[in-house]
């Protein structure tokens, strides 16, 4: 694997399987009395969170600590960043403190990429969510969860429902699941599907009911009610009526199909409360799996020659493929 994890589009099938297989072994750690491995002892992992996210930050923190790394948490609120310090100066400070890995969550798409390619830091950069662009470790833990329940993902049908336009989880999952051979269908109202989605390696549909009949897994994305103020949909009521996973739709799912959600959920909006709590919902398991997957990512990124500078060259394979298509269609 390369030095950074910026986007799931960067992962080859072999890379992705290596992460999942490694996570499979690391998951057993949770059952041991001593939930610790010495692997990253003496390494420093910095959580650089410009956006609030207790859940993801804690997951990365647990992952790093279970590998015996030292963890430094940096959150934007109340810090020098909120007083106007730039990303660059923050990065230089972390570099001066000797960070080996920086886990960054930022509101601006491409911020982790800037950090990785700018030359400000020599550490590995892990994208914990950048704007509406990508959230690669979420996609990895989703794929890991799917694999545990469905086995090999080749040919498996996964339906992703919700605000795809603004969802970094949807993008990361679309690239990763298709790399792993799954058939992905994105379902959303037309206002919430990105321009050019017909060029993505997935299907898309405006109709949820027909997409649920034959799927092996359905992943519900969080939809913010405030989007109705920007006219993406007329009302929360209409959204959940047309695109929510309610009891009626849940009953129509194939028996083996699992229900997923990256969290946090809007119970009653995109997913009914009893569906979220049903036996076929793996939402809580996704969280557990998140720690193992993030341990695998940190281990795979931080092994290898330290201090060797390896510039990631942009654009990524997937993005340059698509821009080739973009040239033709607009």
């Amino acid at each position, binding site marked *: 694997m390369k030095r950074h994890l910026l986007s799931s589009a960067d992962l080859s099938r072999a890379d992705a399987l290596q992460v999942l297989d490694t996570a499979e*072994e690391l998951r057993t750690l949770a059952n041991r009395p001593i939930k610790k*491995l010495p*692997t990253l002892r003496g390494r420093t992992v910095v959580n650089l969170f410009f956006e609030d996210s207790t859940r993801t930050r804690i997951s990365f923190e647990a992952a790093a600590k279970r590998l015996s790394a030292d963890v430094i948490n940096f959150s934007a609120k109340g810090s020098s960043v909120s007083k106007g310090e730039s990303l660059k100066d923050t990065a230089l400070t972390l570099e001066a403190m000797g960070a080996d890995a920086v886990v960054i969550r930022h509101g601006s798409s491409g911020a982790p990429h800037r950090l990785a390619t700018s030359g400000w830091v020599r550490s590995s950069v892990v994208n914990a969510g950048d704007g509406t662009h990508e959230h690669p470790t979420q996609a990895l833990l989703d794929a890991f969860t799917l694999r545990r329940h469905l086995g090999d993902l080749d040919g498996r049908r996964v339906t992703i429902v919700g605000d795809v336009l603004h969802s970094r989880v949807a993008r990361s999952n679309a690239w990763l699941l298709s790399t792993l051979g799954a058939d992905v269908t994105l379902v959303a109202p037309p206002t919430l599907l990105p321009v050019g989605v017909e060029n993505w390696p997935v299907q898309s549909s405006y109709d949820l009911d027909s997409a649920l009949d034959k799927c092996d897994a359905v992943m519900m994305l969080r939809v913010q009610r405030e989007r109705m103020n920007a006219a993406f949909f007329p009302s929360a009521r209409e959204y959940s009526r047309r695109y929510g996973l309610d009891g009626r739709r849940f009953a129509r799912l194939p028996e083996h199909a699992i229900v997923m959600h990256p969290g946090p959920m809007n119970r009653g909006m995109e997913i009914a409360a009893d569906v979220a709590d049903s036996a076929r919902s793996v939402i809580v398991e996704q969280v557990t799996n998140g720690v193992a997957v993030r341990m695998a990512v940190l*281990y795979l990124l931080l*092994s290898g*020659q330290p201090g060797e500078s390896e510039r990631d060259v942009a654009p990524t394979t997937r993005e340059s493929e698509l821009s080739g298509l973009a040239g033709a269609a607009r």
Partner: protein
Amino acid sequence: MGPSAPRSESHQRQLSASPVVVLDAADIQRALTRIAHEILERNRGSDDVVLLGIPTRGVALARRVAAIMGGVEGTDVPFGSIDITMYRDDLRMRPARTLEPTEVPARGIDDAIVVLVDDVLFSGRTVRAALDALGDIGRPRAVQLATLVDRGHRELPIRADFVGKNLPTSLVERVEVNLLEYDERDAVFIASAATAGASPASPASPAEGAIR
């Protein structure tokens, strides 16, 4: 363990153009049988004995020895595997390695006599890592070490309790172990660096040349 004639034998091997087989299938079988009996003798039976093989080939050896022991005692001797990748002392120096499974038998290792099983004992660093890994899983009553081949050149104060064959080697030589479970045959052979088929980091013989 008297001195063999190390220098001239290994010197001769180095001059040889092709790998030299030092143990064939029958030799390996006899060695494992002897090791199985030695374990039983030393521990006065198989009660509380758990065999844990160090991946990759240590696992197959552990399974075979457990089967032989079980045949003698008329019981099932628990065996499993213990992956030491996360405990290596050279992680920063090499690209990340895929993890192998760690499967500890249901009775666990607390208060057990754990016999670590590996194919080649060389620097001793693998075994050091295995001891650390064991410590995080439980607290055995005792830990013993069985190895098919001991090729010398220890870098740590580690010694095997049960040895299939002592094989003095020079540092430029490579010891390769083939087992039917993974390869086409059972054999142990020695190649000089020039004739060795695989690169040092290949999974063909992970303990060999991996943690030097």
